[in-house]
């Protein structure tokens, strides 16, 4: 048996080169990672690449992971996000086809997992997102799931970069407040 099979314990074992610990992390977070990558890159093969690169970055970087600063799952999903956005931008740099305009989806409502806990967490995030103003929701969805950069965002929503920055800041701050106190009243930011 493992001495510590919490995420943080597994990351520590990965830092010592324990491949079984990496496999455990993959088994635990692979579906969330693949779901996120697929949502951003919209192509199964590219999503696999993003997930593989993210887990390799965990393998290489576990030694330097600071548990005081982030949860391991936050770290892993940030890596998946980063790699996915990289891949999307690289794909975009080839000439676009007319039918390829990336339309942001609404945050998915379908639940293909039987994982009740995760599903409750998802509902909570959906409820919080629903309480953002539509422009706040739009900027988060375009940036996080669409992989749009700040200048693309400005162009797309027809606002100056300064507005994109302040809106993103306000959206994330409000989302953070809403997630921290989901039932409470949260003042507008």
């Amino acid at each position: 048996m493992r001495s510590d099979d919490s995420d943080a314990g597994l990351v520590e074992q990965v830092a010592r080169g324990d491949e079984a610990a990496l496999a455990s992390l993959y088994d635990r977070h692979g579906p969330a990672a693949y779901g996120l990558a697929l949502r951003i890159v919209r192509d199964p093969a590219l999503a696999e690449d993003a997930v593989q690169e993210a887990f390799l970055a965990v393998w290489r970087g576990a030694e330097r992971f600071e548990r005081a600063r982030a949860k391991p799952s936050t770290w892993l999903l940030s890596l998946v996000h980063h790699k996915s956005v990289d891949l999307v931008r690289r794909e975009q740099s080839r000439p676009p086809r007319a039918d390829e305009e990336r339309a942001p989806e609404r945050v998915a409502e379908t639940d293909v997992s039987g994982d009740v806990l995760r599903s409750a967490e998802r509902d909570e995030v959906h409820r919080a997102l629903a309480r953002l103003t539509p422009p706040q929701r739009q900027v988060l969805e375009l940036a996080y799931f669409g992989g749009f950069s700040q200048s693309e965002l400005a162009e797309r929503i027809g606002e100056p970069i300064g507005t994109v920055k302040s809106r993103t800041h306000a959206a994330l701050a409000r989302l953070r407040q809403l997630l921290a106190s989901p039932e409470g009243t949260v003042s507008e930011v």
Partner: protein
Amino acid sequence: MSDRGHAHDDLRTLVPLHALDALDAADSAAAEEHLSTCAECRRALDEALETAAALAFSVPPVAPPPALRERVLEAARTERARSEAPAPRAPAMRPRRSFRALLAPARALAVAMTLLALVLGGIAISARRDAADLRAARARDAAAIAALQSPGARVVAVQTPGRSVAAAVVLGRAARPVLVTELSKAPPLHVYQVWAILADGSKPISIGLIGGGRDQVVRLSRTLPAGTTIALTVEPAGGSPQPTTKPFATGGLG
């Protein structure tokens, strides 16, 4: 936007977009540079990343194709096989005085002091680490000591444009070069990457990754011919095949 003149307040506004990976390259580099020195903005980034991860959790999980698991593990195994090298043998410790003599060729006193503090302080820091860390730390300290003690050792400063010393490269004739840094911990999801830019104008070669903080002594992965420039950049965790940000410190090997 990417100039060093960015005030803290300006850079602060980039943090939320940075957490969403939505900065353009120039701003991303400016943000990274600022984050490497600003604890307040690092905390803001950590918070923003945590909130961004909640967005990730809003996506329904999808079972990856079964073959991907083995592909990931196989890639990890391959990588380890490539990076594993025999551990360096630790030389016997010499009296402290000898370090000062060996450092005589150092161009900057600041570098010498940094080196001394790091090499001599290494063991004390090590006492707080577990066994694996301790072995790794000893190996790193030993590498620095060996390089300093090798015949004709010289020290080259790697400096920021403002002339502050970010790192020192110790070049010995026999040993592989060692880089000693005094960098704060790299920002989350990022590392410092060390590049060798050869005089022949070819592309920069990655010669090491540093997390900052406790990883302060690294043996570089190749010897460096005269005329090489050493450059440090901030890169996403795991390093990049080529620099993606502007070097924040450089040093020429003359």
